[in-house]
């Protein structure tokens, strides 16, 4: 009996967490997305009036409609910024993987007494505020900044490069900020790798490069997938990095949402964009997971 209750608690807690901190807020956002803009506190109608009871709920529901979603289809800015977010997040994820993989690989291959220190170095940037680190990149990337001074000093370029306020700066910012999220799962996958498998591969005639692609890389796949998701998903909704490092033509859904919410004071449309964003993110993830599961079944 006690054990059953304990198990219930153990499973129940995360679900309770999900309910309170995800489903309820989502419900509120969804409700606002069906409302209309108004000049009032809060800036939309209808609002939920508890004291009116059942009648209040009925009039609330009759006041809701999907007008805001129709508005979204009529204007291409939302699609454009969503696609542009996907592109920026996708390219950044690939770049982070390219930088993170060798890093994680060399960490996993390092003598075991070094590893805690190396791991520490990866985590160290988290001790400084994210915002300050992004601001620091402004100082590095601006026309009169450290990077340009270095490049001019070395003689690589004659004129300072315009990096700040472009998409390039956004890529640099995302790769830098999210690198630990890629390295850590990769490292944990690579560290577990059984060295004797590589020896076996070489005994069977593989060069070390072939052995890497045939043994190491496939076995590190879970790390690659986990790392890529950890980078890709937050990168899509990223607001701070494109706002500070990107130019005004850097379109990302986070910036569009901000403009809708703050500049336009249009909470209903902003909520509709947020709901759609969530759906558009969840669908590919669910599809991907289904496909993974099927692949695993097939292996069995």
């Amino acid at each position: 009996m006690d054990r059953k209750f304990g198990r219930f608690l153990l499973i129940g807690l995360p679900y309770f967490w999900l309910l309170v901190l995800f489903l309820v807020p989502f419900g509120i956002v969804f409700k606002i997305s069906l409302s209309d803009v108004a000049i009032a506190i809060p800036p939309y109608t209808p609002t939920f009036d508890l004291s009116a009871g059942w009648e209040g709920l009925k009039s609330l529901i009759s006041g809701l409609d999907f007008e805001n979603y129709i508005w979204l289809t009529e204007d291409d800015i939302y699609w454009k910024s969503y696609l542009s977010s996907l592109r920026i997040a996708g390219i950044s994820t690939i770049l982070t993987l390219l930088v993170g993989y060798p890093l994680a690989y060399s960490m996993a291959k390092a003598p075991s007494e070094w590893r805690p220190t190396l791991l520490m170095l990866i985590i160290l940037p988290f001790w400084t505020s994210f915002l300050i680190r992004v601001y620091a990149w402004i100082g590095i990337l601006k026309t009169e900044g450290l990077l340009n001074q270095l490049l001019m000093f070395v003689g690589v370029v004659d004129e300072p490069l315009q990096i700040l306020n472009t998409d390039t700066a956004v890529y640099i910012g995302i790769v830098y900020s999210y690198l630990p999220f890629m390295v850590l799962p990769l490292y944990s996958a690579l560290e577990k790798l059984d060295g004797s498998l590589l020896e076996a591969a070489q005994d069977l005639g593989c060069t070390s490069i072939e052995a890497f692609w045939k043994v190491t890389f496939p076995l590190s796949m879970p790390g690659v997938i986990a790392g890529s998701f950890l980078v890709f998903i937050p990168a899509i909704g990223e607001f701070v990095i494109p706002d500070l490092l990107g130019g005004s033509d850097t379109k990302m859904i986070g910036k569009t949402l901000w403009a809708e919410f703050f500049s336009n004071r249009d909470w209903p449309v902003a909520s509709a964009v947020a709901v759609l964003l969530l759906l558009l993110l969840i669908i590919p993830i669910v599809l991907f997971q289904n496909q993974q599961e099927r692949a695993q079944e097939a292996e069995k």
Partner: protein
Amino acid sequence: MKKLGNGLLTSVVALGMAFSTQASAEEVVNVFNWSDYIDEEILAEFEKETGIKVVYDVFDSNDVLETKLLAGSSGYDVVVPSGTFLSRQIQAGVFQKLDQTKLTNNANLWDVVTERVEKYDPGNAYSINYMWGTTGIGYNVDMIKERLGVERIDSWDVVFNPEKLAKLKDCGVYLLDASDEIIPAALNYLGKNPDSHDKADIKAAEDLLMTIRPYVQKFHSSENISALANGDICLSVGWSGDILQSRDRAAEADNGVTVEYAIPNEGALMWFDQMAIPADAGNVDNAHKFINYILRDDVMAKASNYVYYANGNLPSQKLLEEDVIGDPAIYPDSGTMQKLYTLTPYEPKIQRVVTRAWSKIKSGS
């Protein structure tokens, strides 16, 4: 080390005081004002004089303030929105009427300002003017001379004529990220009513802005201060006091950068930042005391001398330093005053059109 020890000691004492005063149900006033917009000595002196503790918090855009106010229960007692925003917020029921009997210093208000504020706050019933300013052009004198061959800028032509602005592309151009200020400036340049709420006019402004878009590096409302001062950019459409702060920073840094501010001949936007009390404020009495203190001529003069913005307090003008009251960029002469225009808030429908146009302009497509 000694310094550190001292610092530690003071913070411990301060902490102790904070606790002891908290226990005696301390009088506070929660103020939400623009960043870099007051001489902090004013707050300390107010606390000393009245015993009311000022909890001071800052923002850098009207949008952020408005979102907090419209969400309700902001927790602030005194806030400082600009005119057009104030007007809409009054309509939304965000503010309470000021109790004029508690504002014994309100005779200090300058009629030139209060008359214009009528447009946003009829009868000046909900707010008092804190500061006002213009939206004009800040520029790097040497870089402009090098590229355009002029000593000083006196026309919007430099911004809205693509041929001229193209010459400044390499040295960097910023515009304010404020659709409700840049679109009117474009309309004014086109010879149309800057306060037009007509769709066709907004479209005309959008078309004009699209022609200069390729030469604009960034739309931002606060980064221009340091970017101009450091010589990272050579031109920015910005708020008078911000550009003047940038001018001072460059002069102090002695980095060879000279920044100037111009109110162009065609005229510019005159805006007002108004102090008001939210309807749900918890310390209404203290809020009135704070506002009444700000209305004092010596206090307002001190604030303006510090932030380089003009204020709406007539007797304070005698107490202003010469480089504030004598600077036509801060207190324009009467000829220029005639050319300044004011705006009214957009209705929600036209606001959507404006925001849409603005995001198109910003993204350049």
